[in-house]
């Protein structure tokens, strides 16, 4: 992985309003050369509006965008030769075959015939699509369409890549393959701006992450730093048959070494710096007439940080997105 401290992308005070709706509200961040930067937020948070402004599909109301050292706020065309884009929808040409689609996209970047054909075959092989090379795009499955769309975005080997929800709506195997390809591009030094609603995907891939909610960036940090507050913490979930309001106080008095939360009725979250001893907890609850249905150890992750910072339940965010886009990651 190549890395230097210069910026592949710099965004300062970017704002975008659609009528009464403030879609993006004064956001600033930078992506270093060779960095994989995650942009994480729920549906409607402003992720796609941000990416559209960065690539030149939307015009910012205020703010500045600098890509690869080129000031391109008012002239997005200036840096488009440096940029590859994988949009959130598979938007290739239904009437062309997979091979023709890739060759056409390569031609848009001025690649000569021999070069674009060689590159198209290389990518078809990389994405496991060579058998479907001569099939029309509208005959592809959803996962195949997504992979070909990804391949089209990197056909010209751009040094800066924008990925908008690259694994949404595709099967587990394809999602895994796409993640491996993203990791490979990152290792070879491509600067990547990734928007996703899959928190585990961001945690696994990204070096630095920004959380965006209601058009505002609420936190930006290295993934390792974001994870620091939950590092070494022990979390246990207990599912119980019923609950009552006084239980929280009773448990806190009996076990002062633990922190208790009741995220839903019938569920108790216990957090501690020391390993949680399950036996006394179960006995305590059963003596008071509660039946313990399940005890589940939980490894704290970026999801916990996301919930803490944004107040949004990650599971709700995922379901919301999948309702809109279908499918899911692994």
């Amino acid at each position, binding site marked *: 992985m190549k890395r230097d401290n210069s910026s592949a992308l710099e965004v300062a005070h970017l704002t975008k309003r659609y009528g009464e709706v403030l879609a993006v509200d004064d956001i600033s961040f930078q992506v270093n050369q060779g960095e994989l930067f995650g942009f994480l937020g729920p549906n409607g948070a402003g992720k796609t509006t941000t990416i559209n402004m960065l*690539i*030149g*599909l*939307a*015009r910012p109301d205020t703010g500045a965008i600098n890509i690869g050292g080129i000031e391109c706020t008012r002239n997005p*065309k200036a840096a*488009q*030769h440096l*940029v590859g*884009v994988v*949009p959130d*929808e598979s*938007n*290739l*040409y*239904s*009437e*062309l075959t997979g091979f023709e689609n890739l060759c*056409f*996209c390569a*031609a*848009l*970047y*001025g*690649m*000569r015939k021999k070069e674009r054909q060689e590159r198209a075959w290389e990518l078809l092989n990389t994405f496991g699509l060579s058998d479907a090379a001569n099939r029309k795009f509208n005959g592809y499955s959803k996962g195949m369409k997504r992979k070909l769309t990804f391949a*089209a975005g990197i056909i010209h080997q751009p040094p800066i890549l924008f990925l908008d929800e690259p694994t949404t709506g595709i099967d587990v195997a394809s999602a895994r393959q796409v993640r491996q390809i993203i990791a490979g591009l990152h290792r070879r030094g491509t600067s990547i701006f990734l928007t996703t609603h899959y928190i585990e995907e961001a945690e696994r891939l990204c070096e630095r992450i920004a959380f965006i909610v209601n058009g505002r960036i609420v936190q930006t940090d290295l993934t390792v730093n974001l994870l620091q507050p939950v590092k070494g913490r022990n979390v246990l979930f207990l599912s119980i048959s019923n609950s009552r309001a006084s239980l929280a106080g009773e448990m806190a008095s009996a076990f002062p070494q633990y922190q208790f939360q009741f995220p839903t009725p019938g569920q108790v979250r216990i957090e501690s710096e020391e390993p949680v001893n399950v036996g006394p907890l179960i006995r305590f609850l059963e003596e008071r007439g509660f039946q313990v249905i399940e005890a589940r150890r939980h490894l704290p992750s970026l999801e916990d940080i996301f919930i803490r910072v944004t107040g949004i339940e990650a599971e709700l965010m995922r379901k919301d997105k999948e309702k809109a886009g279908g499918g899911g990651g692994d």
Partner: protein
Amino acid sequence: MKRWIAFSNIFTKDMRAYYLKPPNVSWGIIFPLAWTGMFFIRSGLGLESVLELLPGVVTISILFGTTSLLSVTLTFERRSRSFERLILAPISLELLMMAKTSGAILFGIVNAFIPIVIAAFLADMSGIVWSLVVPAIILIGIVSTFLGLFISVSASEVFEAQTFSNFFRFPMIFLCGLFFPILSLPIFIRWLSYILPVTYGVDILHGAVNGEHTMSYTLDFAILGAFCVVLFLLSLHNIKHKWIN
């Protein structure tokens, strides 16, 4: 060189994906034939009127050929978001739109020669001034295409684009001197004829085919050229403000 590769591939892709599709080829042939037949039957005239009708039929073939297909292809690509790929390519919007419209211009020009070829079998065409007809056909093709582009940019659905197109096209048949002289129109609507670009193209064709034109060729060509530039620039302005917002 890189820009030429992009331009030629957009043009070739559009020709293959849209204009050379069998339904569109047959539309390109049947439509001018139908118009020619319709006007012959309606006029009740003999073969001597072929050259009289030719400028109108040629123009109508170009106008409908270019505007119909361009509005469909652009609106369709915008709906499927594949047009975004073109906007994201490192080529200027001007070059991109020239590439996108060049297929429609060529389609319109080819359409124009179908009634001409038919007429060649039915009438003596030795008096036609081809040095005027050919550039006039090319300019009518360009201005009709850019009119189609201007309309398409305002539409978000294919049916909207078709409706807007008809709003312009059908009045043009009657107002632009295709089959009825402008001077025979009521004076209070005659001004409409002069704000429609096709009027000037038809005037050149009437002059080149029948020797009957009402304005100087220089003025006709200059106004047609000006319409091409204005419609193209207006379309680009609208794309920048409506599609990239």
